[in-house]
């Protein structure tokens, strides 16, 4: 087995090659993991951008490296090659804490009450407890969690827990929110309700969002733009802009036809991967 190229990516970024408005720019991202003495190529030359206040969905088959990409953007693990810039500065694993990240697991701390879970990010940033709680209380109210501030997570339903995690993520005050299948573990009904809350991130809070999902309909209902990744190793297979007015109805003609188109792309991708 040939050793992988061991170069650092940042050098490869051409200054000014991207639109100024981009919050996140990824160029030629490569990531591989050691696996059984060999290498597992997970991301191969992925390039994408997320513009300011844009809601970008990442769609792709299971195992294609979506979570890996999120982890790299969050600064949790390093890239093997490629250029990553957040607000124009390179992303690295040393200066973390620049994006707000939410995963499929809500990761609420069981020993903290709802409100103290919500202020975790602010607490790490050194915001004093009282003002942090005041902000959190207001935000929890807006996400339908009023009256549960002092409850422990063990008492909450899955949807409520996920909303607390969302509030915690929002309160981090970062330009970019990375959401990795935040509703993956929820039932269909709760999921629909959560999508409504998520849309508000954009409409009300003006946040920039990179959103990973398995669910084509969810992507079409929420996103301004969708990147479809190929099966592993992940590459950008298609980029689809969704210029539909909101609120979008799952049964609307345009939504249905866009969904069909995306499903075709995914279907072709899976067939190719199987071949």
């Amino acid at each position, binding site marked *: 087995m040939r050793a992988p190229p061991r170069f650092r990516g940042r050098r490869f970024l051409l200054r000014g090659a991207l639109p100024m408005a981009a919050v996140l720019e990824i160029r030629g991202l490569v990531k591989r993991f050691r696996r059984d003495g060999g290498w597992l190529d997970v991301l191969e030359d992925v390039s994408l951008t997320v513009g300011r206040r844009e809601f970008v969905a990442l769609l792709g088959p299971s195992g294609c490296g979506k979570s890996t990409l999120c982890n790299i953007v969050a600064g949790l693990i390093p890239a093997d090659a490629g250029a990553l810039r957040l607000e124009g500065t390179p992303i690295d694993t040393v200066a973390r804490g620049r994006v707000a990240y939410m995963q499929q697991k809500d990761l609420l701390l069981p020993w903290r009450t709802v409100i103290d879970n919500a202020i975790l990010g602010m607490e790490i940033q050194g915001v004093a407890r009282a003002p942090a709680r005041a902000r959190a209380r207001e935000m929890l109210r807006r996400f339908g969690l009023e009256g*549960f501030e002092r409850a422990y997570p063990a008492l909450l339903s899955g949807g409520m827990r996920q909303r607390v995690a969302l509030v915690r993520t929002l309160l981090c005050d970062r330009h970019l929110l990375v959401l990795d299948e935040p509703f993956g573990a929820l039932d269909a009904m709760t999921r629909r309700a959560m999508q409504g809350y998520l849309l508000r991130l954009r409409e009300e809070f003006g946040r920039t969002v990179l959103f990973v999902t398995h669910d084509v309909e969810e992507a079409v209902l929420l996103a301004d733009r969708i990147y479809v990744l190929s099966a592993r190793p992940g590459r950008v297979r298609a980029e689809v802009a969704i210029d539909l007015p909101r609120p979008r109805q799952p049964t609307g003609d345009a939504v249905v036809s866009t969904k069909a188109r995306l499903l075709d792309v995914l279907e072709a991708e899976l067939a190719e991967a199987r071949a």
Partner: protein
Amino acid sequence: MSTLPPRPLAAPHRAAPASGGAAPADAGWLGGLRRGAAQAAPPAALLAALVLLWEWGVRALDVPFYILPAPSRIAGLLVSDQATLLAQAAVTLEEVLLGFAIAFVVGIVLALLIFSSRTVERAIYPLVIASQTIPVFAIAPLLVVWFGYGLLSKIAMAALIVFFPIVVNTVDGLRAADPDAVNLLRILGATPLQILLKIRVPAALPFVFSGTRIAVATSVIGAVIGEWVGATRGLGFLMIHANAQLHIDLVFAAIVYLSAMALVLFGAVSAIEWLALPWRRAGDR
């Protein structure tokens, strides 16, 4: 504030009443007490039955008191010799508490060192575990030689016994934190100290408490062994002394005191745990 989407977006799950948050009436301390009493009833009934059987057996078979005293006789002694028993118990309790406190502090510090340094772990942890193969009885006489007949050798004895469950449970607890939760804090930009204080320590507390509950009860054993081997005071000393004079009822009275002491200490730790970890009760109802 801008307009919100209509409230129906709020999830369709069974929302509990929104008043005051977590604690329903039954989860308060009164409810806890009631549940505790309900739990204690069956073993208490069984114990009472065994004591009655014992009383009856001793009377029916006419067993002499210097072989096996009847419970009623022991009870009588508990009243008549109360002053002596209490004085000796105070000595033993002091040894237990001091030994426990020292081992607790040293154990926690050592566990933190083992957790945070690979080198320390490799060097010390195997020795800590191997030390458990040394029978406590075997070193008790040595401790008396080294630390004398006084308080010190008993404190050392109790501490040695307490030490192990504290270290092992704390190390396990520090390792028990959800790695994803640790990563979450890393992503938020937390320092290693913040990760320790906000994730590792809270996650370790339930483990520390279960280690402590075991430790505090066994520390009584440690102190008594120390007293058996060489002492001039304490319940263990009283037992040896009474045994030699065939005052078997006094031996039993001392045992009653020792059990009560261990039980109270165990209960105290459980109560502190109940108060300190309210989130542990949030789920169970």
